[in-house]
């Protein structure tokens, strides 16, 4: 049996932490697709208290997104098929980045293309712009066609794509992995060997909901990405598997984090920082509330530093040890 660790005073808890070469003031970041480009939240919350934020996915050219309906709520979660709508790289750099840069928090720019040349073009444009701390390479959005899913599910393709982006970007690349991949550890290994600084996981899980009265899928593209607490156990399992396989690879964990205890679960599973996504929709101050809660729950369980929480998970004793 593990001994109970004494609590520490919340004021003694240090949230500042490291993620690869980055120094974060908190391990909590707002997740891509759930925070737009940040401005909308300024009216509701103190963005400067975040560890950082990841922007809506940026493509070389603007995208208008998918037909309606685009979202629906499901048990403990929601499905979305927005279609990676975004302002495009040029407008992002001109109109959105200055605001983010001035916040003084870690700026992660999520980006994607539709094929190798557009991915690389985007990595080159964004990855050499001052004020961007991380390029989050999105190889995992389920909501675009053109075989986009291959980038996220075939390790060899992900490896080549990651390498090509790493080569043209001054900013470190963190690859956002999809849970729809067959073998998440093999995917993490492929992008790690291609020079990715770290990995983000998980993106949404492909799902479906049906309106039986209208005999129609509840979203126009039939399938969408499931997010929210419904996917948290799967996300934790995948973070844990990747962390165990590659203890030195920085992992940004996410999937249904609604409170401080959820975030601490991800740290204990092996993530070094945590993104908060769907929670921001209902509560624009969610990231800040969760920051306070994380401090309190770390204090309660006797973890004074984020690094001490990361991977501190203990296995249950094996049957032999119990009877021995």
């Amino acid at each position, binding site marked *: 049996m593990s001994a109970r660790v004494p609590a520490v005073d919340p004021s003694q808890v240090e949230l500042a932490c490291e993620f690869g070469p980055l120094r974060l003031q908190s391990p909590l970041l707002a997740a891509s697709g759930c925070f737009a480009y940040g401005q909308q*939240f300024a*009216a509701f919350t103190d963005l400067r208290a975040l560890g950082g934020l990841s922007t809506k996915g940026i493509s070389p050219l603007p995208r208008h*997104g998918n037909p309606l309906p685009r*979202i*629906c*709520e499901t048990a403990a979660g929601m499905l979305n098929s927005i279609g990676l709508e975004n302002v495009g790289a040029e407008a992002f750099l001109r109109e959105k980045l200055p605001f983010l840069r001035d916040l003084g928090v870690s700026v992660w720019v999520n980006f994607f293309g539709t094929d190798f040349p557009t991915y690389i073009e985007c990595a080159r444009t964004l990855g050499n712009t001052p004020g961007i701390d991380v390029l989050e390479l999105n190889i995992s959005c389920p909501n675009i066609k053109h075989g986009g899913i291959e980038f996220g599910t075939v390790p060899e393709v992900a490896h080549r794509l990651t390498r090509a982006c790493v080569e043209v970007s001054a900013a470190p690349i963190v690859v956002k992995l999809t849970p729809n991949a067959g073998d998440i550890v093999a995917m993490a290994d492929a992008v790690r060997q291609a020079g990715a600084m770290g990995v983000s996981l998980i993106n949404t899980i492909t799902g479906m909901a049906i309106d039986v009265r209208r005999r129609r899928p509840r979203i126009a593209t039939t399938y969408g990405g499931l997010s929210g607490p419904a996917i948290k156990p799967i996300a934790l399992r995948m973070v844990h598997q990747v962390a165990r396989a590659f203890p030195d690879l920085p992992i940004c964990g996410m999937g249904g984090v609604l409170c401080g205890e959820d975030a601490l679960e991800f740290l204990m599973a092996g993530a070094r920082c945590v993104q908060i996504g769907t*929670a921001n929709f209902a509560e624009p101050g969610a990231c800040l509330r969760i920051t306070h809660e994380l401090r309190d729950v770390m204090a309660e369980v006797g973890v004074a530093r984020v690094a001490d929480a990361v991977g501190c998970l203990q296995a249950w004793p094996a049957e032999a040890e119990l009877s021995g």
Partner: protein
Amino acid sequence: MSAAQFEARVTANTRLGGGYFTLELEADAPTPVAAARPGQFVMLRGAWGRELLNPRAFSVLHAEGPRLAILAKPYGLGTRRMHALRPGDPLTVTGPLGVGFPDPDPAIRDLLVAGGVGLPPLHLQARVAASAGLAAQQELFYGGRDRSDLVMLDDFANWNITMQLATEDGSFGVRGRVTDALRPRLIQAQAAGERVRILSCGPTPMLAAVRHLGLEHHVETLLCLEENMACGFGVCLGCAVPVHGPKPYRYCCTDGPVFDAREVRWP
């Protein structure tokens, strides 16, 4: 005044018949929702735990100081839970959100066209007009399946606002749809050279019919729309509205919910 998120408690849950109910809420202090314009909305979420994540959007029926009220009908999981709320129960409120209807204009007669739970923006528009001494410039066209679908008529009567009521079963007002009452009024206005404007909110099929009538008669027509939304403040991008123009979509929550009928790209 910009939107805020705050906690409020239910002070009354009043059944109006036909399944409709009003929820009256009160916060600890005056809220920015008190400045809401007709058509603006709030996102409401109860203590729903992890099962139901997202708040629900409701047009502001009335708001003053720390108090606000909405009209609803049990439809899905969220509205059914709200129907069961009792005085003292907490709700998280975000608002006021969106862009509402324009102010009443002494030079224009507003034809307020309502159906179902689309009444609140027009009820608030009528209230605003009445308090500005412009009740005579407002006319309500209100339709439902039967008598129980027409609620809060006393308020309009008290404000001295002319009403044309329609029920599909003929149990109250004229038999037919609200557009059956609206069409002759538009023809009359056209013949008299009268300046009118349509403000409408209700079920999408009704709005589609109102839109066609307005366009056909070249009358300025403003539609207050509803779409699924997770956030209500321009982040989730779930509530896209198809529009004509350089971009194929605008957003119900931040560009609307009030849109010009000419802009909306509907069949």
